[in-house]
Every structure is written in C-alpha cells, then in structure tokens.
C-alpha cells in the first residue's frame, strides 16, 4: 500500500510518501525521525489528542477546557466526544485534574487544562 501525507510533527510540513506492508514500511520525503514515526503511525493506528470543553458551574466562565492526556485512536473521536459532553464540573478546578478516568477503555484520561477558582 502507498499513501501520501503531510507531516505535522513541526511547522515545516514535509510532504511524505509511505510504502510497504505491515512491519515493513519505507518512508520518503521526511527530514527527521519524527516524520518517519508519524507516517507509520498514521498508516497503522492514527491517533489524535482531543481538545474540547465541559460544562463548569460556579466559575468565572461557563466552560472548562479539557483534553485527552494522550492521543486516542482517531476512529473513537466522536464516541469520546459523546462521553465528554455528559460531564458537568463544579469549580474549583485545577489544571491537570482528571475529569474522566480511562475514557472508553483507551487507557487515556481526560484532564482539565485550566485552573478555575470558585466564584460565587
């Protein structure tokens, strides 16, 4: 199998081509090792960090930003969004607080990305 892709590991954005089959891939067009790793991962198991928000009560603003603490499988993004959108937090919230543990058995937690003090 052959696939063209744009590397996103840094702002250079190398145009890469990956060829081969499982366990034996050749990557061309990359200018560093990160590019090769990214291309193989995109081919075999693409993953993304999901940054989004959840409802928060008693804080200065109505939404608390959260993210998956590590990249999660791309095909699970919308299922994970459904789970995240059910969460309601109450301030105070601290940056790094676990909002959902091991979301959808991915082994990845959803964490808060902002400290939000309680406001009455």
């Amino acid at each position: 199998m052959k696939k063209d892709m744009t590397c996103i590991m840094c702002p250079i954005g190398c145009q890469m081509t990956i060829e081969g089959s499982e366990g034996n891939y050749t990557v061309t067009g990359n200018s560093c090792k990160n590019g090769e790793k990214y291309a193989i991962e995109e081919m075999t198991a693409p993953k993304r960090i999901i940054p989004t928000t959840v409802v928060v009560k008693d804080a200065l603003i109505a939404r608390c930003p959260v993210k998956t603490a590590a990249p999660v499988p791309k095909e699970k993004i919308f299922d994970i969004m459904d789970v995240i959108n059910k969460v309601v937090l109450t301030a105070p919230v601290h940056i790094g607080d676990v909002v959902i543990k091991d979301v959808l058995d991915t082994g990845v937690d959803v964490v808060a990305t902002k400290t939000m003090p309680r406001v009455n």
Partner: protein
Amino acid sequence: MIYNVVILGGGPAGLAAAVAAKKEGAENVLILERDRELGGILNQCIHNGFGLHTFGEQLTGPEYAERYINEVVQLKIPYELNTMVLDLEDHGELKIIHAINEEKGYFPIETESVILTMGCRERTAGAIGIPGYRPAGVYTAGAAQRFMNMEGYMAGKEAVILGSGDIGLIMARRMTLEGAHVQAVCEIMPHSNGLVRNVVQCLDDYDIPLKLSHTISFIHGKDRVEGVTVMKVDKETLKPIPGTEEFIKCDTLLLSVGLIPENEITRKAEVAIDGKTNGPVVGELRQTNMPGVFACGNVVQVHDLVDFVSEESVLAGEGAAKYIKGELDTEINFDTKNGDGISYVVPQHVALKNVEDSITFYMRVRKVFPNHTVKAYLNGEVIAKKNAPKFLPAEMVNFKIKRSLLEKYPNGEITFIVEEKPEKKIKL
C-alpha cells in the same frame, strides 16, 4: 508611586514581557488587562499545539497561558483586571497612562517606561464588504470561538467558513466535533493562509473541503443566514469569474479573513507606525521611536505561533529594564528593508550594542516559494542566507544573524530578498 514598567495588555506578550522585565531588574512592574482574567486570546484557544518551540511539548492555549501566569504570580507582579487604557501621554522621562475601571473609576498611572502589548483584532464582515443583507449567523471565527469555548453557546449547525487563517481552520474542526456540519472553507488565495498541521488535522481529518481560489460573493437570508454564493476567482486578479456561482445552503458564516494590530493608543500617542506591518516601528529590543516606549507581540506584527510572541516579548522586557537603568544604546547601525518577495521585516532598525549574541529578523514571504533562498544584502553584498524546503506566507521566517558578523560591516541598510536557488549542476 512611579512604576518602572507598565504593560498594556495581559495576553501572552504582556505576560512574557512582564516576567522578563522583572527578572532583568525592573522592580515595580504593573500589568493592565481589559478582560476579566489574564491570558488574553489563549483562554479561548483550547486546542493543542502551543509551546513546541518554548517548552518542547504540545500544550493547549490555557495551559500555555497558565505557565506564564504562574510566573507572574510567583514574581509578585501586580495586575489590574477589567481595566481599559484610554491614553498614553509622553512627558519625556515620565509617561502618564490614563486608565479606567469599575472599582477606581478614572485613574492616572505614572511610569518610567511602557510596553505596548495590545495584540490584534479580527477583520469583520464590514471590512471585506460582501454583498447581501446583514442577517444573524455571520461571525468572525474568533467571536464564534469565544462563544463556544468560553460562554458555552453553539454558533450554528450548517457552516461555511471564509478564509483559511488558522482560527478558521481550528473552528472548522471545533464545530465538527460539537456536532455541526462544516460545508467548506473558501480561500481567495491559491494557497492556505493557515499552518500546514492545521489544514491536515482540522480539514483533512474530517473531509472538509478546502476550496482554494474561491470567495463568497453573496450572503443570502434576511433574518438568519440561509446560504451563500461561492464563486471561483481569477488567480491573478482575485476577481470572481462569472458563471462559476455555486449556492451553498447554511445557517452560519464564519470569517477568518485577517488580523489587524490594535494600535489606537499607539497612534494617538504619535508613536511611529510601519505601514507594512500596521504596528509600531521597532528596534532590536522592541523600542519604538518614543524613548521609554516598547512594543511586542501581535501589536507589532501578526505572529502565527505564540512561541515567537513570547520570544519577542522577552526582548521588550529586557529592553525596558535596560532603559530604566540607563543602559539602552540609542545609536542605530542598521535599517532593514523588505526586498523582492518579502512583505515586511521586524525589527525595522538595529542598534548593535544592544544585541547580545545574535539577532533574529522576522519576516513574511508574499507567496509560496519552493526551492528558494532568502538572502540578506548589506550595501550590495550578500552577508547571510537562509534556506528552507519551502517558504510559505502563513509561516513567519526567522532569520538569525550573529552580532559578530554584523560587526564586520559599516552601518547601512539590510535588505532581505527571496531568490530562486540555482539548479544543481550534475557531475558527469
């Protein structure tokens, strides 16, 4: 009390400048912020990708801001929130800032130096003059971002985005993740105006079409947006081509059509402005032509990465600290100029004695240049080169030149020019 440094804006530029000024010996530093919290635009940029250069990791906007806010708190730098600056007055060694907030009403602040970090704002529908009514559902991408990420309101269900700037791309993904359908992103230029990784992760990932060389020629709907007419444009003249009209039904139109440095205070104070950047003319430590007034971040030039805003703001903070100690040199050795293919250069001039080891010139190319070199000419001679696989208008070029190299040359004008690389000779 007379402050050493007062900073106008508590966004990424203001925070980094305040920290740098304090660390370099400015004792009394004050940050003035018009919003209800520090952090500026980073608070609504909840996506990841910030800090790769500064911290070597991918942070979200709020996380990036919090690192600097924590430093401001640790260094005990005071700040005033919900505070609007009305005017900056120059009285030579003393500057007076006229400010207003709910608690104190009007109050003047005296300071030895000022750092301008007001950032930039978005161009609106009015600025680009699309024909049609003015129905509900037309937002700038940043306004929609704030509604969704901070206030908790959904901007719409069926959206079209005009302009492929980074905020537009990010919002295409954001709306999709929250259940809306993004029909297309239209870009009048033949190339994207956003970072490559945003095109890949925000559009390609969700099969959102990027219509290059396309614009919106009409907004339909009287009370609420009912659709838009999209037209192909001529690549040279950028004028819509008759006969290419396509109607797209939608209830929301987001505009990501450029950012304008916010320099009302700067202009009123009669600080010199560069017509190419729409920001103040600055030197190597971001000093303006008004002694004691410095500027950094998006108020000087619209950056694409916050990391470079922080980098530039450290210079301004150090510059202000030097100024109050009387250590800032004022003899200008070099002016800079944008030559062929370059739209602007920052800083606009250099006092070499203030440069420590090297100086970074920031600039943007006018169009996509594959296989090109950016060259720095001084008095007709090439003194430095920068190569990249591809130069893109969306990605600021950082051109570093060592102080030791510049010391070898007499004073003059440094011109940056994009030149095609000569074809490689094949050895026989």
